[in-house]
């Protein structure tokens, strides 16, 4: 090993070769297009849901035979049935109501029988209890979603009616003060519950992104090493380059190819989210609930990029080292399983850690370089991480990357010449000691 000066330009040539080879392969093109298409489709799921629900509309006539209903009874019932859409004339209304008096009963019954109406709701008043009584005539399923919505709305109306007769209202009764106070004011956390929930969802998403990228693209690195060894081109490479150059080139080349695929998929996701509104409007004539970008601030995004890059570097070096121990691509899976365990461990720790972000073990583990990509990211996205803490985690990761590079280059230099044998840890260490 002659140090950094000799790392380039050979590492660069190797990286370019790896990148081109990967990008140019059919599996890359197919995989990228497929994944991007799936990602884009996934972002349109809300539109699809709205579409399937949204195109159906229940036509219902309400015949009021009861006297003394609250004056806003109609608005109240419509508000219950159509939810927030009632205030937006462009939005889809689940129910189309016609409000009739007792005298229109016969005509309404005729419409119902001729299929011009889906349901007929009759409001009576019980002569004894004076409570409202509802009768629903319909062929809709009695335990279906639509009937249940009508049931709920009717119950609300009855409640409102009863309270009005008692001289009060739902609004007056239900506005009981409900205050949330944090136990301590430490950790800088003045997050509201809803903020905390959205941060939780966001960091879970980001952790999954890192998790998947490390496994997928790390495996690429290991595969590429095993392939080179399997095709025996390794010996030519060994004369032309050093293990360090090969290692660095492979990690950079495959990493760049992985990032390219990742970028394309992310672009599809962002594009899909941005297109959600217009598509929603195109299909349903109204805009949807908007893209869920809440909680994604520059700090979290910056931490994500840094931790992603460092985590990928660290793990793919180890992937390359383990890949060098097998001579066939089929064996890569089993050879890299120890890494899989490590990655899984970090992943699950972070998922549990999100629920217990202030626990000591989470804080300690977030400084362990193998787990920092997950746990430090989780902590940053939940807020309350001092800059020095993040800095320390990054420095520790950088140190471990350099150590991993040296160790991996040794294992690699020894491993690539061991053919056909199942290599144990002892053999690796022994071989690594005597290789250049």
């Amino acid at each position, binding site marked *: 090993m002659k140090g950094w000066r000799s790392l380039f330009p050979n590492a660069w040539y190797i990286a370019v*070769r790896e990148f081109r080879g990967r990008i140019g392969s059919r599996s890359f093109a197919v995989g990228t297009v497929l994944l991007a298409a799936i990602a884009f489709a996934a972002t349109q799921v809300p539109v699809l849901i709205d579409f399937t629900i949204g195109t159906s509309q229940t036509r219902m006539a309400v015949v009021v035979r009861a006297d003394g209903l609250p004056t806003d009874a109609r608005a109240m019932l419509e508000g219950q049935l159509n939810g927030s859409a009632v205030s937006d004339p462009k939005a889809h209304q689940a129910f189309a109501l016609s409000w009739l008096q007792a005298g229109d009963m016969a005509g309404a019954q005729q419409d119902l029988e001729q299929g011009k109406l889906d349901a007929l709701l009759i409001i009576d008043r019980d002569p004894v209890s004076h409570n409202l009584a509802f009768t629903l005539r319909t062929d809709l399923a009695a335990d279906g979603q639509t009937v249940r919505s009508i049931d709920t709305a009717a119950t609300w109306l009855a409640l409102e009616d009863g309270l009005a007769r008692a001289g009060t209202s739902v609004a007056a009764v239900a506005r009981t003060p409900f205050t949330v106070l944090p136990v301590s004011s430490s950790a800088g956390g003045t997050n509201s519950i809803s903020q905390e929930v959205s941060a939780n969802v966001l960091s879970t998403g980001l952790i999954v992104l890192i998790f998947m990228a490390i496994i997928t693209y790390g495996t690429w690195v290991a595969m590429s090493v095993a392939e080179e060894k399997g095709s025996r081109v390794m*010996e030519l490479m060994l004369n032309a380059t050093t293990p360090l150059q090969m290692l660095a080139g492979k990690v950079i080349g495959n990493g760049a190819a992985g990032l390219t695929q990742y970028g394309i998929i992310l672009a599809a996701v962002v594009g899909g989210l941005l297109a959600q509104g217009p598509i929603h409007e195109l299909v349903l004539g109204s805009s949807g609930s908007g893209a869920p970008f809440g909680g994604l601030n520059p700090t979290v995004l910056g931490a994500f990029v840094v931790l992603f890059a460092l985590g990928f570097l660290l793990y793919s070096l180890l992937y390359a080292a383990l890949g060098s121990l097998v001579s066939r691509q089929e064996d890569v899976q089993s050879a890299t399983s120890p890494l899989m365990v490590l990655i899984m461990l970090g992943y699950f720790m972070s998922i549990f850690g999100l629920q217990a972000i202030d626990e000591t073990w989470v804080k300690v583990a977030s400084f362990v370089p193998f787990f920092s990509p997950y746990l430090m990211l989780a902590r940053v996205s939940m807020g309350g991480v001092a800059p020095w803490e993040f800095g320390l985690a990054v420095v520790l990761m950088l140190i471990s990357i350099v150590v991993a590079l040296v160790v991996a280059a040794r294992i690699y230099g020894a491993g690539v010449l061991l053919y056909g044998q199942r290599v144990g840890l002892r053999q690796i260490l022994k071989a690594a000691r005597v290789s250049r």
Partner: protein
Amino acid sequence: MSLIIDSISKRFGEVQALADVSLEIKPGEVFGLLGANGAGKTTAMRIVLDILRPDSGSVTWNGRPNTEVPRDTWGYLPEERGLYAKMRVLDQLVFFARLHGVPSREAARDARDWLERFRIPQYADRRAEELSKGNQQKIQFIAAILHDPEVLLMDEPFSGLDPINAAMLKEAFLEMRDRDKTLVFSTHQMEQVQELCQSIAILDRGRVVVGGSVRDVRRSSGRQVVRLAVAGDPEIPWLAGLDGVRIRRRGMDYVEAAVDGAYDPELVLRAALQRGCKVLHFEITDPSLEEIFIEHVGQIDTSERTLAPRSAYA
């Protein structure tokens, strides 16, 4: 000023791959490394290339330790041939040359030149996997020499080649020698050694059993070989009765016999004339390298060429 391998030893677990091996290979020389499978030829080459480190001993090229010699000094044709299967031939050659510091334009020009000379220019844009094995081997040879190395190490360069391709490679080989390159190659094909090499070393189980110039090695046993043909007697039965003479082979044209170092081979001719034989052919020569090899290494070489006896289970 030469390639000096100074008492290197290398052990892999139980196996002593090389034991105190010393060789001196002069610049511009063609050097043959002979030995059966597992004799340590590949290990020796890998150590020279600094792909492996010896347990003890050192390698120097023109006085500099091999660990400090620039990597582009060496050209290497490994025994295990391999190319990037999906990569186009020309891209591949340029890639390897660039790793050795050759600018890509120059590398592409030289690569095309060599493809032309090996009469396979049409394969420049093909993927390596589409080429026949022999043609892949030519590509690998080009990859080994494209950066114009001073020393060329080739592990079994002729194995697996048909006679036409082998002849073509041999020509390229000699051209390298004429360009004052130092050539080291391993083989167990003795005819090629006798034809190409100035010096050789025979390795057996990690040790150098005999080494030096081809002539010295052939004379190292002290024995000489006579070939005799007389009119009307293809068997020459009396030859076996002479002191110090052993019949090696009875051929169609002559009988070949080994004469111990203590005896003068001319005695054979004299004996024939005394018996009134009409001598058609008489030749004194040194034992072939193959004989020397077998003498030192035992029957390993022939056992590789002949079938093992049928086992009791068959």
